[in-house]
């Protein structure tokens, strides 16, 4: 019996279960299938801070949201259209987000009184009518999986583990996803454990067939591929893109990559990823702490490497003193801050943008450091290359700001050809540059104000650098008052001068008559963009600017700001970019903030913006 297929232009699916149930893996696979199918997509993994919070508890719920469409989209979606809940806790934790009319697929297997009581439910929502208004598919997925694996060699417990593959099979059928990739993936992943591989494949197929054959699923859906600009695409997460960007920068600069890092969520994956690519001459040094991480990187920079250190808020706080040394030594260094919820340990697995002012000012003395920020998972690649460009060109530490949302989220990414990437070659000093044949390590390039980079091994350029104030040109220790004032202003001027190397800002103002400008930085790009679309769809005009460079600000920012009646700055903090913009341009920018450890919801942002436009 063939079922009818319904056309959709976009769908948001959320799969939720115990952190032990493999929800992230299931989500990743469905994402891959969807990507290969050619939809545009955005994902949002959300998992607990504990490695494995106790099974069946709210704290233990892990979820993965996927938004895919036949047109280009910017966010993982505000609310799911379809929620798959693998146990009662998953249902309770996520039900609130499912709009009425939404589709609900529930694994009924664990809906025992004990399990319900454990999460404070006195009655069974599957029976007490509290799910009215949703399209509910209550199915014992676990049992179906066990049945499908009846004659497998696996223990009941292990067999049950395959229920996520059953669910994946079902979903794959529902949305007509290609399945080859998944089957291959499973075969590879469990190459050494053929019985497990078989079980998963059987479960997956059983899930597919279950949708195909049973009555309970009347329709399947189809979301046509999106029209994307031509090119070769892949799905990529922010941390992987950032890692690849660094390797590419190394290759394009001809400098070996050195990473000094200490593990910390959500930055650790960069260390993990880079440690896989030793063939590219990438050295990863897992240091004893964050200070040693940046210290080693700084040592490598002195030696001529493209030096990088990665961390998150608490670790960055520890690096402040060493960043100050890098400012004083004027050596290239990329400092990646993958932001998470703060203050202190805060919310390690949640996203936030609250390290901007720490990046700006978190050091003693006048110690200016350029700041660039990535706006989407794929954009982390370009941002890494840009950070490297600035560090190498200006001989300065550079902050690269990403966050948990970008780090773990993924999106389709047009794969660039290495040969097309910017040329980052640098010239080490090879000759004395002093009139009298001496070497002056602080004699600057008149254009960039960068000092020469003379690496050990270069005869005749032996020199000493240090963190005490240095005399102009010679770099010798100097306590001279005027020299200090001069050096402080020169270091500032060097960083300010970077603005001259920046392209004009892109103002997105399709109607050209917008009175309100919304400006953001970092991972709010998606939600703000989606919100602007809603505003425009509602017939109103709004302009959007998103900043990749926050220090220095692009030269044309001031002029742009002055063109609009009202400037709105949405941030996942208490208004840090707003503080910088207000201080520099003296405009009464409206700071719209949310510090919930989650990205903005596009529709809430959209409503807010419409409000501003109306009352503007």
């Amino acid at each position: 019996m063939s079922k009818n297929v319904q056309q959709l232009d976009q769908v948001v699916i959320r799969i939720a279960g115990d952190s032990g149930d493999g929800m992230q893996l299931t989500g990743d696979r469905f994402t891959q299938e969807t990507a290969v199918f050619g939809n545009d997509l955005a994902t949002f993994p959300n998992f607990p801070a504990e490695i494995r919070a106790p099974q069946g508890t709210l704290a233990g719920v892990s979820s993965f949201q996927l938004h895919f469409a036949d047109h280009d989209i910017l966010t993982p979606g505000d609310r799911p259209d379809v929620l798959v809940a693998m146990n009662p806790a998953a249902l309770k934790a996520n039900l609130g987000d499912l709009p009425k009319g939404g589709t609900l697929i529930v694994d009924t297997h664990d809906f025992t009184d004990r399990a319900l009581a454990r999460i404070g439910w006195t009655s069974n929502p599957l029976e007490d009518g509290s799910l009215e208004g949703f399209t509910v598919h209550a199915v014992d997925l676990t049992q179906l999986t066990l049945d499908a694996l009846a004659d497998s060699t696996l223990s009941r417990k292990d067999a049950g583990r395959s229920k996520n593959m059953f669910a994946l099979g079902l979903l794959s059928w529902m949305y007509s996803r290609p399945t080859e990739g998944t089957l291959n993936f499973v075969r590879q992943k469990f190459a050494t454990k053929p019985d497990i591989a078989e079980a998963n494949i059987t479960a997956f197929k059983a899930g597919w067939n279950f949708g195909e054959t049973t009555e309970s699923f009347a329709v399947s859906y189809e979301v046509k591929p999106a029209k994307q600009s031509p090119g070769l695409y892949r799905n990529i997460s922010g941390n992987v893109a950032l890692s690849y960007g660094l390797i590419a920068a190394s290759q394009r600069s001809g400098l070996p990559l050195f990473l000094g890092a200490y593990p910390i969520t959500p930055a650790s994956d960069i260390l993990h990823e880079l440690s896989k690519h030793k063939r590219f001459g990438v050295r990863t040094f897992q240091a004893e702490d964050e200070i040693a991480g940046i210290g080693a990187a700084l040592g490598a920079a002195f030696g001529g490497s493209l030096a990088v250190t990665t961390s998150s808020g608490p670790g960055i706080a520890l690096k402040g003193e060493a960043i100050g040394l890098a400012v004083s030594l004027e050596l290239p260094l990329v400092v990646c801050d993958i932001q998470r919820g703060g203050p202190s340990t805060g919310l390690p697995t949640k996203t936030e943008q609250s390290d901007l002012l720490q990046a700006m000012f978190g050091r003693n003395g006048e110690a200016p450091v350029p700041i660039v920020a990535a706006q989407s998972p794929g954009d982390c690649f370009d941002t890494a290359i840009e950070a490297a460009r600035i560090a190498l060109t200006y001989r300065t530490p550079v902050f690269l700001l990403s966050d948990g949302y970008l780090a773990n989220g993924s999106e389709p990414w047009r794969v660039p050809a290495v040969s097309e990437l910017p040329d980052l070659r640098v010239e080490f000093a090879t000759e004395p540059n002093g009139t009298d044949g001496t070497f002056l390590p602080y004699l600057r390039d008149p254009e960039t104000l960068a000092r020469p980079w003379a690496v050990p091994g270069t005869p005749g350029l032996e020199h000493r650098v240090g963190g005490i104030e240095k005399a102009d040109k010679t770099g010798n220790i100097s306590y001279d008052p005027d020299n200090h004032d001069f050096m402080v202003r020169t270091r500032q001027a060097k960083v300010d001068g970077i603005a001259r190397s920046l392209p004009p800002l892109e103002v997105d103002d399709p109607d050209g008559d917008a009175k309100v400008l919304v400006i953001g930085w970092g991972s709010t790009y998606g939600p703000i963009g989606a919100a602007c679309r809603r505003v425009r769809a509602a017939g109103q005009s709004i302009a959007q600017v998103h900043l990749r460079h926050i220090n220095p600000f692009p030269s044309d920012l001031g002029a742009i700001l002055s063109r609009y009646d009202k400037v709105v700055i949405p941030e996942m903090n208490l208004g840090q970019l707003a503080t910088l913009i207000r201080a520099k341009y003296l405009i009464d920018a409206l700071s719209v903030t949310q510090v919930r450890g989650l990205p903005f919801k596009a529709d809430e942002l959209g409503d807010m913006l419409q409000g501003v436009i109306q009352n503007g």
Partner: protein
Amino acid sequence: MADLGLKPKDFKTDQEVRWCPGCGDYAILAAVQGFMPELGVKREDIVFVSGIGCSSRFPYYMNTYGMHSIHGRAPAIATGLSTSRPDLSVWVVTGDGDALSIGGNHLIHALRRNVNLKILLFNNQIYGLTKGQYSPASELGKITKSSPMGSIDQPFNPVSVALGAEATFVARTLDSDRKHLTSVLRAAADHSGTALVEIYQNCNIFNDGAFDLLKESDTRDDWIIKLEDGQPLRFGADGTKAVVRTAQGGFAVEDGVAEGDPSVVIHDEHAEDPSYAFALSRLSSLDRRYAPMGVFRDVQRPVYDQLMLEQLDAAAAKAPGDDDALDALLQGSDTWLIA
């Protein structure tokens, strides 16, 4: 090693040396500059990295590459330099506060990793640059600006700390004994891996005379225990003092030990088991005046920089990391084409 025709003066810089007149650092500087030609490494291939402290001003006076970094972090910075540039000869100069107080963690981690660093620890048992507070190497009860009623902190025994941290080379010497200092520098330079050299250094302003017992002709023989590989640990003006084993396997000093007494310990700097060198190091804790001088331990273990290099080479040998490889990496396994 290759003679490059370098002279000690080739290692002097035009910077005026700014230690207090009479500071032990001058003698150490002279000894190091005197030894450098023997090192047989070109000036441009040598780097001195230091932290902060009087001692840490050292790099400014060495005509090589150098970095005067921040307090306590020199071992970490040098680790990054040495692992990324195994071709260089990297030296760390640090003080007892720089290395044992704020920098203690970086020191012990460099030692366990066996990074190819030569660490010279100028131990004057005081914070010199900050004008005389007690340090982790100062004796109990020491009266200083920050301990007017006497320090209550049990000091570290730097050699014991290093041995507890898997050090492959540990030695001690004295600022004023140019010959001995040079011989120890030589041994450290010959060692591949991290070499920690503790140098007793007089701070004549804030801790003057800390090592007079080891310097004055009428006392030094009674307290300095010269460590010479394969030689019995005998000392004392008349050579009748000796280091002997105790029942518990530790060491003790006995006086009037007869010639050829079998209980006298024969020094073995290459003993694999650090327990030997550790027991030796405790003599100075038993009685602070005892000062075993020379190489406590010198054993071979794979060097961190080399191990890292080998992994890179192995990976590249399997499949070179060229642009094509990078293109392939960027593409990954699951791609799709949009025409």
